[in-house]
């Protein structure tokens, strides 16, 4: 027991007495909390600029343009005389799409023929493309439905029958969670978990490279260190995953107990993983660079932003060894989707499994180090 307490105190001292570790584990968390969300503060993409090329110049084409312009997603900010001119505006990134209304648009409508319009959306940016397509497609579909209904009514069909014939069902799409499709709401909860993991890995691995060899039974030593991490992150984790998102106005549906119960194996697995990283790379400077480079790959491997369905299975298997993979999935489901512990039990057990795996490796390393140390002393 005394070994346990000594190891716990030594670990806490290792964290707080070392300026660099303090900088990483505490200061960096604050700085990242300020810098990381900066690009996403606007949350929603509204009024994406689109160029209008109206070759018809009639009342109908003007009505169509007005309806597209009125949509929330896009705004017709530029007009051009032809496609060449319009494309140039898109090249300059002043607009992200071109709405082309061909000559004879109104005439074809009046004759009861199909009267197509063309939409060119900049597909080099995924979100822009989606918004432009959405913004134009909805008013177009609406106007099309109105035209069809008008024709049916003109033929003598009753209005409600006409409506039912134009669109036989009303298709409703309900986004569960993040209903406004906010980008910050989408990406930040996962990013915060990753930041927590990366700073913890870096800081605790540095502590591991710098500490003197522990005296006492390896199991008690390790438990003492784990106690130190738990004590520290029992404060930091709720601050980072509950208070910080609340400051940014992100929704939180999570049960605090579920968060803490899932957070515990995450912290322990990450701390133990840090010991393995330290044993593998040994030098503090190298560890920092390697972990810095691994941040983005860890994020994309976690299957959050890039769906796990698209990740090749062997890479996905390796990704399961990184605590953030299960932690991001589990914690995001708990805080953003209100999942119960039972619903994230796979993530929970996976994290405990990692604790067992990394714990065994660290114990083996510690025991070996102690034995080698002993032999050296005997030889000396």
């Amino acid at each position, binding site marked *: 027991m005394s070994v346990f307490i000594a190891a716990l105190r030594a670990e806490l001292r290792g964290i707080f007495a070392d300026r660099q570790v303090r900088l990483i584990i505490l200061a960096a968390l604050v700085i990242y909390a300020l810098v990381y969300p900066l690009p996403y503060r606007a949350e929603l993409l509204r009024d994406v600029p689109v160029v209008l090329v109206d070759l018809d110049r009639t009342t109908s084409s003007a009505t169509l343009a007005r309806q597209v312009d009125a949509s929330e997603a896009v705004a017709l900010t530029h007009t051009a005389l032809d496609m060449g001119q319009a494309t140039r505006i898109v090249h300059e990134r002043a607009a992200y799409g071109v709405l082309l209304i061909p000559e004879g648009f109104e005439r074809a409508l009046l004759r009861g023929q199909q009267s197509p319009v*063309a939409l060119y959306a900049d597909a080099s*940016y995924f979100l822009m493309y*989606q918004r432009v397509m959405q913004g134009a*497609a909805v008013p177009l579909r609406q106007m099309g439905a109105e035209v069809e209904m008008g024709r049916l009514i003109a033929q003598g069909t009753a209005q409600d029958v006409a409506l039912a014939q134009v669109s036989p069902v009303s298709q409703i*799409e309900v986004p569960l969670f993040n209903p406004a499709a906010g980008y910050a709401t989408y*990406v930040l909860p996962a990013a915060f978990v990753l930041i927590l993991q990366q700073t913890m890995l870096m800081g605790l691995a540095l502590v591991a490279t710098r500490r003197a060899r522990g005296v006492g039974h390896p199991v008690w030593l390790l438990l003492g260190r784990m106690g130190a991490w738990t004590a520290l992150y029992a404060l930091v984790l709720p601050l980072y995953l509950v208070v910080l998102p609340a400051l940014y106005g992100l929704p939180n549906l999570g049960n605090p107990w579920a968060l803490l119960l899932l957070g515990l194996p995450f912290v322990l697995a990450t701390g133990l993983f840090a010991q393995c990283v330290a044993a593998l790379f040994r030098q503090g400077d*190298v560890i920092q660079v390697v972990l*810095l480079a691994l941040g983005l790959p860890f994020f994309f491997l976690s299957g959050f932003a890039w769906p796990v369905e698209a990740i090749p299975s062997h890479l996905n298997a390796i990704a399961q060894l990184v605590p953030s993979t299960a932690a991001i999935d589990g914690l995001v*489901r708990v805080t953003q989707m209100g999942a119960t512990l039972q619903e994230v039990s*796979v993530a929970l057990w996976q994290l405990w499994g990692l604790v067992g795996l990394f714990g065994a490796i660290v114990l083996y390393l510690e025991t070996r180090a102690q034995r080698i140390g002993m032999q050296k002393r005997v030889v000396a």
Partner: protein
Amino acid sequence: MLRVMLREFRLILRSPALAGLVVVLPLVMLLVLGGIFRAGIPTGMALAVVDLDRSALSRDITRMLDATPEVQVTHQALSLTEARSLIVSGAVRGAIYLPQGLERDIIRGDRPEVVTFYDNQHMSAGSLVARGARNAVDTALAGLRLSVRQGQGEATVQARVSTQPIPLQAHALFNPAFDYVHFLLAALIPTILQIIAAAATAYAISLDFGPGRHPQVLVRMAGGVLPAMLGKILPYTLVFLLILGLSDIALYGWLDVPLRGSFWLMATGAVFFVLGVQLIGALAFVTTRDMGRAASIIAVITAPAFGFMGLGFPREAMAPLAQAWGAVIPGTWYVQLRIDQSLRATPFEISVMPVLWLATIAGVLCLLVLLRLIRLRRALEAGA
């Protein structure tokens, strides 16, 4: 200076830490990232169907859903509660609700509701699922609407015209294959290289200029602080340009990402990009004279840089402060240049702007490093 450069190359070969950081680490990253995105656009995402109608039509819709590449019907849920729980636990990414009496109500003209629920917290997957489901239901219903009109005696062609008076001809400008995958990859590689190049340059400099080292030897060998520093930096410029070139060969050659623009413009941009990034690392080190603190500065600048590049959430929609912060990071301009020259075939006079920006950033950083070096030389002379 040449002697310092040659010495540096020998150092890279001899020191496992250095070789690991500048050669092995970037190559491993290339492999991992290439592996993640190799499979392309995700398909077959799990979907639950809550079919309370159990009619020919509802089975038709289910079949259509299964035939859609984006989704795959993996679960039949008995209630919305069950479907919701499946979504929350991650077993499926969405659910489609076909109410009781669907087919009957359609025939009566009652316009029943078909509801698609999707997980928009995982937005990238969720929106794909929603799109797939919408298309499948549309296809199933278009068939129905056509057959209704045909039943009223309209000819097929006429019926198709009447059901869609204003068809939208959607065209993709620039990226007809919708190749987001390789596009993402083409941006992620420079982002990670930016992190590694800045940190590795700082590390290499720390090996000679760090505490407890003897920069005097190196300075004497090169004949001045500036040539000594250049000799330390330039070998890594070559190494990183080689790695960038290698990744480009993989991207444009092997993965067939289109390259429609000027090779020389891309190459010039790449040189300024690598130099600029290295100078960030150099400046961080000569300012702090401590690798730990330098690494923290580099981390704050380069680690969140991906978000500021605007690949997910576009730059133009960001707050001015975020746009400005993105504008001083070399990677932002280099990635823009790559997109311009590979996908968009942007005319030269527009695309030269990011290159000028990159040159400006590298120039300013160079000036700042020089200022620090002048002070460093004084300190060294005082020490010697």
